[in-house]
């Protein structure tokens, strides 16, 4: 069974040492996903697997047989900018841009976790299944994505504008984008 990557069927690598990150970058030449630390510390390699954000550097590609992976190249299917990409431009959510694809994939996954009521370390009431994406929640939930340029304030503003208004009852678009 193949892996589905950005909607395309891709054969599972024969060498089980190939990480999902190297499959994307070296085998498929999808170089949007970045190799930062290659040891799970920086988040630059974040992609979405069946809608969940994961680190592709620590993922063996062979484990993703039969699953659906989206990289930054696949977060919209018409080539247009994702609302989050537009917001990163407007809020200057980057400097060198190296962490940006991981930040954006991570934020899409994070928004879907908020929708599903997944708590975080700063969620005061664990019993509540409705979580507002406050500034504090956003910073905690995005702590796995480092920006060495220090553009975090712009990043937080971009994510906040895209998703904070969507907490509560009506939060469109996130789930369908992640699928």
């Amino acid at each position, binding site marked *: 069974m193949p892996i589905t990557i950005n909607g395309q069927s891709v054969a599972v690598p024969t060498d*089980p040492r190939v990480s999902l990150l190297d499959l994307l970058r070296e085998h498929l030449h999808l170089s949007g996903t970045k190799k930062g630390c290659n040891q799970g510390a920086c988040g630059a390699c974040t992609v979405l697997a069946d809608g969940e954000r994961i680190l592709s550097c*620590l993922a*063996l590609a*062979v484990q993703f047989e039969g699953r659906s992976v989206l990289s930054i190249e696949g977060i919209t299917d018409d080539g247009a900018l994702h609302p989050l990409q537009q917001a990163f431009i407007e809020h200057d959510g980057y400097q060198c841009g190296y962490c940006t694809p991981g930040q954006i994939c991570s934020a899409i*996954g994070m928004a879907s976790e908020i929708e599903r009521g997944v708590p975080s*370390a700063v*969620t005061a009431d664990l019993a509540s299944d409705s979580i507002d994406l406050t500034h504090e929640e956003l910073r905690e*939930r995005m702590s796995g994505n480092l920006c060495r340029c220090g553009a975090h304030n712009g990043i937080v503003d971009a994510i906040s504008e895209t998703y904070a208004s969507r907490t509560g009852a009506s939060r469109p678009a996130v789930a369908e984008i992640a699928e």
Partner: protein
Amino acid sequence: MTPFDYARAGDTAAAVRMGSVAGARYLGGGTNLVDLMRENIEQPASLVDVTGLGSAIEERADGTVWIGAAARNTAIAGHAAIRRRYPALSRAILAGASGQIRNMATLGGNLLQRTRCTYFYDDAARCNKREPGSGCDAIDGFNRIHAILGASVACVATHPSDMCVALAALDAVVHLEGSAGARTLPFDALHRLPGGRPDRDTELQPGELVTGIELPSLAFAARSTYRKVRDRSSYAFALVSVAAALDVGGDGTVRDVRIALGGVAHKPWRAHIAEQSLRGQPATEASFRAAAAAELADAAPLTHNAFKPELARRTIVAVLSGLTETPMKEMAP
């Protein structure tokens, strides 16, 4: 990374059969093992992928809760029954790693993760855990993050897990399956102190597979929490952490209590001394302080972590005081 064979286990019996072959390792989310393999610190001949085995989280009729070993951290921390009945476990998981890693990591992998001692990861350093008999460069090295309780002259590494600290406090039972059959271990008996064999992290037999854990029906665990002290406010390992559950009677005395510490020892440190000293005592800060002092009486700090005993004492007192003040309404099912 050295070459290895990869196979996905279809059921527990097949996993144990493949996992009992020399050089085999079980693979969960890979967030620790793949990293160690890339550094050539782990060089398994074969990986048995057990992520397709049981991942169910079930409340059972007898009041216990079962968590399959393949359950992901995010699923456990977010499960309604865990949040309501064992908040210390949800909080401990959420205090660990990042959102991405919690989506990948499994219960079984969390239990069996290796230390984050920097000398263990540095193959130019001596490490008795990585290479038995070679020596330990941490004991006289930069040992700020290292153990203050239960260490040996061979190893001062700490266990890195947050989840395991909560499981130790909650008296979880670990279910194992091996070629000799199934057995269970009390959580406190899973991990080892280093002694002369720091290369052995746990009491598992070769090829034994963690199939899941059982949380006991512990009503007062609804009043439990986890606090982690670290160098930055998120995405960092613990310097010291405390998981605790507290049962205070109507007369203000401690009916029962569970306390475990992280970041201080080679295993999640169940604070039996503090618990014994607290039962029947008034639930006051003075009692908490005395209990914390008793637990840390034998602490043996190293050159760079003399701050840890006091940090552990203060964190125990703060956590128990906070639990005493937790309004009952938040504990209602």
